[in-house]
């Protein structure tokens, strides 16, 4: 390869990586525009403060989980246990707080502890026992579900008023929960693009064998990634506990956070096979889903129709990305 081929190659690589991210934000702008037009034609107001806040509120929990899921998927893995872990951590948080302000710190520590433990188990089962991530995290999810369902029939614990501020308070037009999401996303972005760990995640997700032969301790990367992914689910559990004022054994599964977070990540242009994509796209993907939701709510569309549209949108988006990367690959060949 001649040296002057390199910049061209890099720009193409850039197009492949940045492409889907740009597409998802363009799609987001498009949906906002169309939504605004449709709602206006319906005689309503779309870009009201209430709506903008609503979109952020709705997307915060899914957004935080999806950031963690992005890490897992980039590393060539995936995590189906997040929904159950969210339920579990919401209960752990509410039970530890028990309505007392003094319990908040202990509750956060307990949630972090539980999340790290679950992430470790996920990572170790995948790397050391060599169980496919799909089965490993599904199995761990079932284990958590069994324990939660065995111990709890309904909401339990109580979250003190001070902590409930996390759920619904806002600073100007920005809810605290959205700030939390932004902080999580920025941290993940920093880890992925500015640290050695981030480069290793891309390397492992791209080709685990090549990464191993290049001296990356691939097992360690996958384990750390799963711990981080579980921590994100734990943070979402804390947020949902703050919103509900209690822990709930079905809050995670009712929200469908497992498959929905994977869908949001893929909608954001991250390749399901790993190694390509990033956090920015995921944020766009989550916002896109939330704006769609908001438009449908305003137009009072049947909730089942929403599912249909959502399914179509996800498949179409990924088909578009597949086409783009296919074209790029074709040009290179």
């Amino acid at each position, binding site marked *: 390869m001649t040296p002057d081929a390199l910049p061209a190659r890099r720009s193409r690589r850039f197009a492949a990586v940045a492409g889907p991210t740009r597409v998802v934000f363009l799609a987001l702008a498009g949906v906002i525009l169309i939504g605004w037009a449709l709602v206006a034609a319906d005689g309503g107001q779309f870009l009201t403060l209430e709506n903008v806040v609503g979109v952020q509120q709705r997307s915060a929990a899914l957004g935080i989980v999806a950031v963690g899921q992005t890490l897992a998927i980039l590393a*060539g*893995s*995936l995590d189906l246990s997040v929904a159950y872990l969210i339920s579990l951590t919401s209960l752990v948080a509410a039970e530890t707080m028990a309505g007392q302000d003094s319990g908040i710190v202990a509750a956060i520590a307990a949630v972090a502890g539980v999340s790290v433990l679950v992430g470790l188990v996920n990572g170790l*089962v995948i790397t050391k*026992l*060599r*169980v*496919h*991530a*799909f*089965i*490993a995290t*599904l*199995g*761990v*999810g*079932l*284990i*958590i*579900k*069994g*324990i*939660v*369902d*065995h111990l709890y029939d309904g909401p339990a614990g109580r979250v003190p008023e001070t902590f409930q501020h996390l759920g619904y308070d806002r600073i100007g037009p920005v809810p605290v929960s959205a700030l939390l999401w932004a902080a999580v996303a920025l941290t993940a972005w920093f880890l992925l693009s500015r640290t050695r760990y981030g480069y290793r995640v891309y390397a492992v*997700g791209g080709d*685990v*064998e090549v990464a191993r032969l290049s001296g990356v301790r691939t097992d360690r990367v996958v384990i750390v990634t799963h711990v981080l992914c579980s921590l994100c689910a734990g943070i979402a559990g804390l947020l949902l506990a703050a919103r509900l004022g209690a822990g709930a054994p079905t809050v995670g599964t009712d929200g469908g956070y497992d*498959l929905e977070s*994977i*869908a949001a990540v*893929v909608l954001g242009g991250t390749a*399901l*096979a*790993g190694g390509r994509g990033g956090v920015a796209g995921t944020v766009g993907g989550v916002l896109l889903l939330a704006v769609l939701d908001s438009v449908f709510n305003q137009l009072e569309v*049947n909730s*089942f*129709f*929403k*599912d*249909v*549209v*959502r*399914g*179509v949108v*996800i*498949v179409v988006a*990924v*088909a578009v990305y*597949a*086409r783009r990367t*296919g074209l790029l690959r074709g040009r290179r060949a």
Partner: protein
Amino acid sequence: MRRTLPILAVLAVLLAAIAIANPFFLEPAGFLGFVRRAAPLVILAAGQYFVIVSGEFDLSVGSLVTVEVVVAARLIDGNEGATWPVLLLLVVLGLLVGLANGLVTTLLRVPSFIATLGMMLVLSGAVFLWTGGAPRGALSEGFRMFGRQTGWAVLILAVTALVVVLLTRADFGRTLVATGDNERAAALSGVRVNRVRILAFVLSGASAVVAGILLGGFAGVSAQVGQGLEFQAITAVVLGGVVLGGGRGSVVAAMAGALTLEALFTLLNLYGISGALEFTVQGVIIIAAVAAGAVRLPFAHPRRSKGDAHAAS
């Protein structure tokens, strides 16, 4: 055969354990009752096997089962004469869903995980949009007979198993495994990779039709009839030693995996493990079974399982 041996051994142990706890299980009626209960999952596992061994996933089967049952109930609405036309319609519907999954996965190159996840959302949304949120109508006796009468259910299962085994022995089965093992090599040796994969998805759709018909008769009409079946089917296939990512595994082992899973549920019930903890035990056993399989594998196939497992998704 060597590959099906471990799962058959596990199945035998579980069946023996059930028989010890409940001697009625050894009588024909008891055993056939178990087979009837297991039939839908075994058939779904056979369908899922084709998709998985070709290197893909089908997450839409659970919602397809629900759709089949709900559509049947609404259209038949207790009218005996409508049974056969509706059955025909159900078959066409299932095949079309499989075809759509296959086309989106191969021609539009959407990873099957996403393609079938999207299909799952579309199906469950569409059917309840149509019925207004809850299942309506009722199934006819003629329809329910298939799932209700042990003889029919066992016969359907036997025929399905025979067809499926013949399919894997035929050219189709071989090219399918070759496709899952190494798509490019298969394509270069003249396999029409896309066509084979599409057919695999169609077969998975067909399996959901049969499972839906059996479950409709057995369990009746509800919005939850197919819930979680996709994960159970995938679990069963993997329990049977079929490798996620494709290229390795036998369909007999996949079906034995489904029987094992069902035997496990039965056993947990018998030993009075409460409903909830059942999930925990199930999770532990799935991980343990797959881990046991994966740990042995490297000696036979050095460093394969990990690589293509990731490439597959």
